[in-house]
């Protein structure tokens, strides 16, 4: 372990801005992508379910 | 399907397109005017310092030539696509890729060759020396057919697509980068006294590569566009 304190860790030897911008940007991009896909999947499922239930209603009626 | 009938079909296409260009001379003149205007804008923008102009000259001339080529791309296939001549071209008993070469060659003769012929005059505006002017013409002579070949792929891909003018630029410009680098590089290195031969031979390699690959891609794209 080379960090003696949390503030030293966040400072990254003076390069904190560059290092953390890179890591945070990567995390944000990935998180955003996963979230967007999650929503897209929810939308497709809702559509599927709607069409399925619609079909089922017709057969039971 | 022998060589002579293939040649007949290709030369038929070239003759027809040249005849059409003769009937509509303004189209061919447009890319030349565009080139002259763009190139003339640069000294007005960066100032008349001859040293600066000589430094940026090769790049400016090449970028302008590249944009002139890009501007004329929509003319390669669009008219044929709209009036149905393209369907007939696809249904010819010759490989479509071979006909594409004829089509692109005709396009280059109409809008590429004038650019090459005019370039020494424009080079003088930027204070290029005699030898560099020769290299400039040579580089454009090898480079502009490559630009037409590559551009034909993009032109075929966006046929009948909305916003095709901008889209073709986005597709084709990344593919133009190597030609631009070698072309402008040839002139720059001849000005620096290294001689442009190495860059010129690389341009030649690009031309050969594009001659072999681009017609197939263009033919595939045309078939896709017509489905």
């Amino acid at each position, binding site marked *: 372990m080379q960090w003696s304190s949390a503030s030293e860790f966040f400072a990254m030897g003076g390069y904190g801005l560059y290092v953390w911008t890179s890591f945070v940007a990567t995390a944000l991009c990935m998180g955003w992508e996963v979230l967007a896909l999650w929503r897209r999947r929810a939308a497709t499922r809702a559509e599927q379910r709607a069409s399925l239930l619609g079909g089922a209603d017709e057969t039971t009626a | *399907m022998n060589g002579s*009938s293939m040649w*007949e*079909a290709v030369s*038929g*296409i070239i*003759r*027809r397109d040249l*005849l*059409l260009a003769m*009937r*509509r001379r303004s189209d061919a003149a447009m890319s030349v005017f565009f080139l002259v205007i763009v190139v003339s804008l640069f000294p007005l923008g960066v100032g008349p310092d001859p040293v600066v102009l000589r430094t940026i000259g090769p790049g400016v001339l090449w970028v302008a030539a590249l944009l002139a080529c890009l501007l004329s791309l929509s003319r390669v296939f669009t*008219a044929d696509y*709209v*009036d*149905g*001549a393209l*369907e*007939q*071209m*696809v*249904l*010819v*008993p*010759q*490989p479509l890729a071979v006909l594409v070469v004829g089509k692109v060659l005709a396009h280059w003769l109409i809008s590429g060759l004038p650019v090459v012929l005019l370039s020494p005059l424009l080079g003088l505006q930027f204070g290029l020396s005699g030898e560099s002017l020769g290299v400039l013409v040579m580089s454009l002579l090898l480079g502009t057919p490559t630009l037409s070949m590559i551009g034909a792929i993009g032109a075929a891909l966006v046929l009948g697509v909305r916003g095709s003018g901008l889209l073709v630029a986005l597709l084709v410009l990344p593919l133009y980068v190597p030609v631009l680098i070698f072309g402008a590089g040839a002139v720059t290195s001849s000005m620096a006294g290294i001689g442009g031969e190495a860059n010129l031979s690389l341009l030649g390699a690009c031309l050969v590569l594009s001659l072999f690959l681009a017609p197939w891609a263009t033919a595939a794209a045309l*078939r896709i566009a*017509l*489905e």
Partner: protein
Amino acid sequence: MLQAVSLRCSRGERRLFTDLNVKVERGSLLAVVGENGSGKTSLLRIFSSLLSPEQGSVLWEGQDILQLKELYAGQLTYIGHLNGIKDDLTPLENLMSAMSLAGESCSNNGAKEALEAIGLKRPIHQLPSKVLSQGQKRRVALARLWLSTRPLWLLDEPFTSLDTAATAVVTQRLHTHLQRAGLAVVVTHQEVALPTEIVQRLRLTG
């Protein structure tokens, strides 16, 4: 012989036809009829190999046309609903360049005779095509039929914007073609005035 084997075709979301089987023998004509949007043109484009079917295949003399490629193109004359006419060229130039592109070069006189056969008089031959009427442009496109030596003709609405006289002339030309053991597939919403025994009708319901 031209044969379609269990063809299926969709455009976008819409299913146009499935399991379509049809056979066209030499000396006979297939008239494809149906409402707008029922897939007539798509079928003709599949026959021409411009469009590849979703399923099934088209056979020419027993061989798949997608395998025959250019060899098949050498067997057919296709006239789509677009004329393929250049506005800046004269009818004569248009006809001659179309023929040389198709690999069936013709003489100046041959082209003039073909244009006359379909009712375009000599003075018209030298005008730019942009001054012609729709019907006249259609005639320029159809004039290729008088020069074509190909056994298979694929015509998309050939009689559109033609007057009765021209329609009769084209029908007569089709008849001659069939009598010489040719084949034709014609998409049309009009009746083709040919003897019923050589005309096969295919109705697409969409």
